[in-house]
């Protein structure tokens, strides 16, 4: 008797634990659908997905570092830096869009390596390393672009005339293009989510990352080259963040300084929500996507309801607490 009662109680808890965030998301969607005429239109939904694509990519970068129980605060700055480099390559140096895509991604990987070196070899804590990296990158980006933005036909310093190159349409397509009505950033996002999901759950390397994150000592004693995989996680983090930066840059059509920084906190929130979704208890790609979508939906609905942005912040915070509260409450053994 008592056992069944306790059992059903437990089921409700575990149900909320698994689905708390999802329930909140669904409630939000229902609310907006009823209140707003235009919410459930295809173009608006497309809009929501497009608007979360950058946050989601940056959150996925954080997710990668979370798998090895690390943390990467530099992702926002990496994204901003990538956008700046891409713009500089095309607009100032007049080089090909291929380089404008490849070089920032390589730089992202390089930054991941440096982070990993400092964290693994020099053994500075992950938070501090990536925080320092954030400072350095923000400074370097601004220096690198001599100011706030690099854009088509910008005047060059010292009366150097007008910038010779332009953003190549192929590059801009990354951020602004559509394939069969679906915005390209959304395609990239879904692709990366799928890849990261498959990578983490179905390949041995993904397992290694989780093993290293779950218990580095055990992983090491089992013969996993743990340092290599922690490196890998940060490299992926840098790479995905840079990819997010390319989407950002292509969407803005310019290299903006600090454009990446805005996304850091939202991305952190999305990645952390992802932790709890579905009761997985591990950083994971699907969860991160859901986290990003939840925030995107809220934002979209509130903008349509003409809320001032600071109330949006309040609602965002409260819903985060609600969703997470449902999820976490009574999750004790």
């Amino acid at each position, binding site marked *: 008797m*008592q056992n069944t009662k306790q059992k059903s109680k437990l089921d409700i808890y575990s149900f909320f634990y698994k689905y708390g965030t999802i329930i909140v998301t669904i409630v939000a969607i229902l609310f907006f659908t009823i209140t707003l005429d235009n919410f459930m239109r295809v173009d608006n939904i497309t809009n929501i997905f497009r608007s979360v694509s950058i946050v989601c990519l940056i959150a996925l970068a954080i997710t990668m570092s979370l798998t090895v129980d690390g943390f990467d605060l530099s992702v926002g700055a990496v994204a901003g830096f990538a956008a700046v480099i891409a713009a500089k390559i095309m607009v100032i140096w007049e080089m090909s869009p291929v380089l404008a895509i490849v070089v920032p991604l390589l730089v992202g990987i390089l930054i991941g390596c440096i982070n990993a070196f400092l964290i693994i070899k020099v053994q500075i804590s992950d938070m501090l390393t990536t925080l320092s990296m954030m400072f350095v990158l923000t400074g370097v980006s601004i220096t690198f672009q001599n100011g706030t933005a690099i854009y088509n036909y910008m005047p060059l310093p010292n009366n150097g005339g007008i910038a010779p190159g332009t953003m190549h349409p192929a590059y801009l397509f990354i951020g602004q293009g559509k394939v069969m009505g679906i915005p390209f950033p959304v395609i990239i996002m879904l692709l990366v989510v799928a890849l990261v999901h498959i990578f983490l759950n*179905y390949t*041995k390397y993904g397992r290694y990352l989780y*093993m290293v994150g779950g218990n580095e*000592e*055990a992983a090491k004693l089992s013969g996993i080259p743990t340092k290599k995989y922690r490196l890998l996680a940060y490299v992926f983090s840098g790479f995905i963040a840079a990819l997010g930066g390319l989407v950002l840059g292509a969407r803005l059509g310019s290299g903006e300084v600090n454009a990446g920084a805005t996304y850091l906190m939202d991305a952190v929130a999305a990645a952390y929500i992802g932790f709890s979704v579905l009761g997985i208890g591990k950083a994971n790609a699907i969860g991160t996507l859901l986290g990003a979508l939840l925030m995107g939906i809220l934002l979209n609905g509130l903008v349509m309801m003409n809320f001032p942005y600071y109330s949006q912040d309040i609602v965002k915070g409260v819903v985060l607490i609600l969703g997470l509260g449902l999820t976490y409450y009574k999750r004790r053994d």
Partner: protein
Amino acid sequence: MSKLQMKGITKSFPGVKALDNVNFFVGDQEVHALIGANGAGKSTLMKILAGAYQGYEGEIIIDDKVCNINSPIDAKNEGVVIVYQEVDTALVPHLTVAENIMMDAIISQDQRLFVNWKSIKTQAKKELQSLGLDINENKLVSDLTLSEKQMVLIGRAVYQKAKFLILDEPTAPLSYEETEKLFEIVNKLKNDGMSIIFISHRLDEIFKISDKITVLRDGTYEGTYDVKDMTIEKLVEKMLGRKLENTFPKHHGEIGEVVFETKNLSGTGGISNVNMTLGKGEIVGLAGLVGGGKTELCKLLFGEGNIYEGEILLEGKKVNPKSPNHAVKSGFALVPEERRKEGILVHESIETNLTLPTLQKYCNGPFMNRSEMRKVSKENIAKVGIKTPNEKQKVAFLSGGNQQKVAIGKWLLSDAKVYIFDEPTKGVDVGSKAEIYSLIAELVKEGNSVIYASCEFSEILGLSDRAYVMYNGTIAKELITKDTNEEELLFYSTGGGQDTRRGGNNAKH
């Protein structure tokens, strides 16, 4: 034909020479026991063999070939696999049982890019079945009990098909039955061509399972013996360097009026309808197999968990502790079972640990009196017999048994009336066990009362005045110690005399 030799092994830690010129030889297809008092260096020696430490002196020869073992991978390549004393260090909590058992398969070079989950799971299941274990391979390791975790690790080692399997105190968390099962497996592995190095503080087990015994004492090599030439007494003398008389102290104190009582107590962890009493100056045993609910009951008494029904009375007054803090204030003390997780703060000094529950005592107002704390700690270290250079040593650097002594020692300073010990001698050498027993005897002599939970029936029989046998979360039987025996304890703790089997099935959850 495999053969392993460790010659002249010396290993120092800052301030401690853990091993000094130790030799260790293991032959083909043998079960070789490695014994020694707490801190003798057993684990250190095995860690060296398993490649966990770099920077030692001496050489390791396997099959007449000098090996450089500098990493766990080197060790594994030489066929050496270890199951550590601290199981949590070797498991990945958020992954499933299957993944933890099959870690090697997932890690191996042969593994293709995409993990074949189906084969991993079926193999893990097979491995578990061959060990006779009923653990769902899809469960997360973080949800397992300590003994289950242990079995997962053994399962992993078996899967790895080692030439030399090191089991560092594998039986400590295991029940009698599970130990038997383990021994069956060990014998099977031996017959399949493996050599097993076996560390245990339960000497009777050593005689049951092993062929050879190597004894370490204070980091030095004492000798290697054939098991048939040895007796427990001789072995103890070799280990401790002295004779040990009367493991269990005789305490003939007066048992006074009832100080502690539970009435129809039910609560978290499947504890139901527990009725027990405890007299002043009495030691009451809580016997039962692993999973019988001893730990849960101890914690419930100590305010950890929720009481659904019933009451806990202390000196006639209803207490029902709501939290450990409340319990301590009411006069309870608990030495928990999982010492690393619950009993001590490994990154803090011995002094900090010892003075923690009683910190108020060494304070003037809110301020701590450091010199008083140091003095008390030194006295306590001496009293409990913790082997350490000084009281500032981090507990992490103590051997397992000495860590346990810290976990006990900190409560000896408190003014508790009822002391609850949950398997306090787990992983403790015979010499220290005797010391712990006499500490407990002293406690009751001073008029305190003790609840002593243990799955080792010899302890219950040797130490307690009265015993409750736990089965499936409730008290199956109350027994007067001097009128009972191991068979009877075992009978009741396996559900004998129960009118229904229902509980037994539930316990398997």
